[in-house]
């Protein structure tokens, strides 16, 4: 099918492609598919950037990735549940206890809590990259409030209208089931015995960069979209929302607010976004919260390095989808290797987010490398290092025509009683030549991701052709 797309693109010609791109852009604008960027002290609602040329992944490869991601999230959830309760993994010497002491995402308030099914990270987005060897690797796991899934669904709608001729002839896995699966998952988190549970999506509000998505998900699930000011916790430790007829009980909250802000009583007392008493209600088992507060403990650049060990430890299985090899500077031998190969590695501080403090070995000056070495020696536990990856590219419509551009992929994984993985995910593409920055707030675009099941047509996907760098991350979760 890859060949067929290429030949279709040639047959249509650049003018027709640009015309289809223009129609898609217009559609995105009038449908109000947007994201919010903060710039010059103002929140600007921008049209979502979309490249009409799809990215292809063969169905059989994807089936393997799906199993790998489901497996990975099972293990991560076992880990979170274990850490807040028995800490067997520490007692058994598989995971070092002192890593938790430094974790900014560990919440002591969550100790001793047993959420339903032992699951804490119900909705997650893991970022995948295809490296020079053609293999898909997990670059990081987002277990707190990952965003982007609404664009997966919207992109597909637009792509169907841009290339109807391809959808007519090929088995492209549909993506629409996601919101239904999410709805089912959220329903299953309701306190026992609550029939016809009331589900709400809790948003920080219109100024949040992912507000479009919060609204989209509420629409698709028929759930209420609420802000903190709409909710109140009663003396009975139950959560209520303020309706035109008074208070109405809420059973499940899909929170899209960072856990430090969800309850001023338990966490940040300054938070205007949250609901006082929410933790009380959750601990009492009177409301389900997804993702559970505290789930972020496993969403950390250091903890990441142990995920393959978690899979082996909790599930007794070999990981089906690999980590990017990661050196942990807290161990003498790994640190020595890192210090000896600084210019060949990407150096990441564990407790920084948003791409801050990351040093890319082959681009850094000698002074920067020396400073990084100094920092690693001073606080080895806070550093990991990874090889500089050769990211794959895909043909993209840009000013000069069709050119290769670097991309990554964020599939979304639902974990409850069962697991569900989106068919594909959000492909983000760096629109600037040679760039690895895929974030939409920084000139990144997106593509529809097609998981294609007609084996006869399939060709191995294109892999990276240019030497390049580990991605910069700006923490756009």
């Amino acid at each position: 099918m890859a060949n067929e797309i290429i030949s279709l693109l040639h047959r249509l010609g650049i003018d027709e492609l640009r015309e289809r791109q223009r129609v898609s852009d217009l559609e995105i604008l009038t449908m109000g598919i947007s994201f919010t960027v903060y710039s010059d002290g103002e929140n600007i609602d921008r049209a979502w950037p979309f490249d009409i040329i799809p990215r292809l992944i063969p169905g059989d490869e994807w089936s393997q990735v799906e199993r790998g991601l489901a497996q990975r999230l099972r293990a991560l959830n076992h880990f979170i549940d274990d850490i807040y309760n028995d800490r067997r993994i520490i007692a058994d010497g598989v995971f070092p206890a002192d890593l938790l002491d430094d974790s900014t995402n560990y919440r002591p308030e969550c100790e001793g809590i047993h959420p339903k099914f032992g699951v804490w990270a119900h909705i997650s987005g893991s970022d995948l990259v295809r490296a020079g060897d053609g293999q898909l690797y997990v670059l990081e796991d987002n277990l707190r409030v990952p965003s982007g899934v609404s664009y997966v669904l919207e992109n597909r709608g637009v792509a169907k209208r841009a290339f109807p001729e391809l959808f007519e002839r090929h088995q492209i896995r549909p993506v629409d089931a996601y919101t239904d699966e999410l709805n089912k998952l959220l329903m299953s988190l309701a306190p026992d015995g609550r029939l016809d549970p009331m589900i709400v999506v809790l948003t920080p509000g219109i100024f949040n960069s992912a507000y479009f998505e919060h609204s989209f998900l509420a629409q698709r699930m028929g759930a209420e979209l609420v802000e903190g000011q709409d909710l109140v916790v009663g003396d009975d430790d139950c959560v209520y929302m303020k309706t035109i007829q008074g208070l109405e009980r809420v059973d499940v909250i899909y929170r899209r607010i960072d856990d430090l802000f969800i309850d001023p009583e338990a966490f940040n007392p300054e938070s205007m976004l949250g609901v006082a008493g929410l933790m009380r209600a959750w601990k009492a088992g009177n409301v389900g919260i997804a993702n559970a507060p505290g789930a972020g403990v496993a969403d950390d650049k250091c903890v990441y390095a142990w995920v393959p060990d978690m899979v082996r430890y909790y599930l007794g299985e070999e990981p089906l989808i690999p980590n990017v090899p990661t050196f942990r500077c807290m161990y003498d031998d790994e640190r020595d290797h890192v210090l000896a190969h600084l210019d060949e590695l990407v150096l990441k501080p564990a407790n920084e987010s948003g791409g801050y403090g990351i040093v890319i070995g082959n681009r850094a000056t000698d002074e920067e490398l020396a400073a990084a070495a100094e920092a690693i020696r001073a606080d080895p536990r806070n550093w990991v290092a990874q090889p500089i990856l050769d990211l794959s590219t895909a043909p993209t419509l840009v000013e000069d025509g069709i050119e290769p551009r670097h991309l990554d992929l964020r599939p979304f994984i639902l974990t409850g009683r069962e697991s569900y993985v989106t068919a594909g995910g959000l492909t983000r593409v760096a629109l600037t030549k040679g760039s690895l920055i895929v974030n939409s707030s920084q000139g990144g675009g997106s593509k529809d991701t097609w998981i294609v099941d007609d084996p006869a047509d399939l060709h191995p996907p294109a892999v990276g052709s240019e030497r390049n760098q580990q991605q910069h991350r700006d923490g756009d979760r």
Partner: protein
Amino acid sequence: MALLSRVADRVYWSARYMERAEDSARVLRAYGDVLADMPGASQRWRPLVSISGSNVELPAVAGSDETQVAQFLIADREHPNSIAMSVDASRENLRTCREVLPREAWQTVNDLSIYVRGAAVTSVERRRRDRFLGRVIDESRRLDGVLQSSMTRDEVFEMWRLGRYIERADMTTRVLGVRAATLLQLPPGAVDEFGEVQWMSVLRSLSALQMYQRATKGPIDGPSVVRFLLFNHRFPRSVAGCLAEMRSSALRMPNHATVLGAIETTERELRRSRPAADDGEALDAAMDAVQLALSRLDATLHEQYVVH
């Protein structure tokens, strides 16, 4: 289905702002049309400013000629009741409650907002203005068509209607309070030349000309125009008509006793204005009283459904 108080409030305000944009467009279009019949009348634009809202002042720098007033009413981003700002406010309110309305409704508002943002400034000029105003009116009507034909008759729908009709009633009283009152106050003979044309324009600005003519069958006469626009409850832009629509929406809302009470108070105030139909000064005062009752009705809705 439960309806969040905050969402109810935003739906209501989205409807009010959309109606405000539409009504301003109607008034402006009719006024521009009648003044085109009166060469050199460009100084007569000022009354339109008072129609667009109380406490509204033209910026001191601006004069009161046609271009400045049209700019103020259409495109001024400092003026909260300008068409551009009303459409924006309607969109911003709706953006935070998209999940409760049909998707097509949001797209209509968003579409209009994109158009207005691009076209408002260049549409001040007389040559392009009519097309712009026509589009604002059409899209606003399309939006109600979408809701009418594809929305469940739930509380969201009723809040939308309440917002639409209260704003429309308010605008009708403003047009009457300002323009009709002024016309009635002119000494006999002073309006003869253009009297009929002026009254036609009052009717037109409320899209009522044809319906008025069908209902009265006689020549256009000031006091009967006023009575038609206030009391003909079968005409959907008359104040009585708007109140009747609000009553039927209120009856479908939960806990509506206080709201019905406020509607009835407004109806009483409206009846009290009957003798004012042929006296300009009295009409102006009577319209102020009805507007006050409408703003109390607005406060009652807020207390009943939003703040509790």
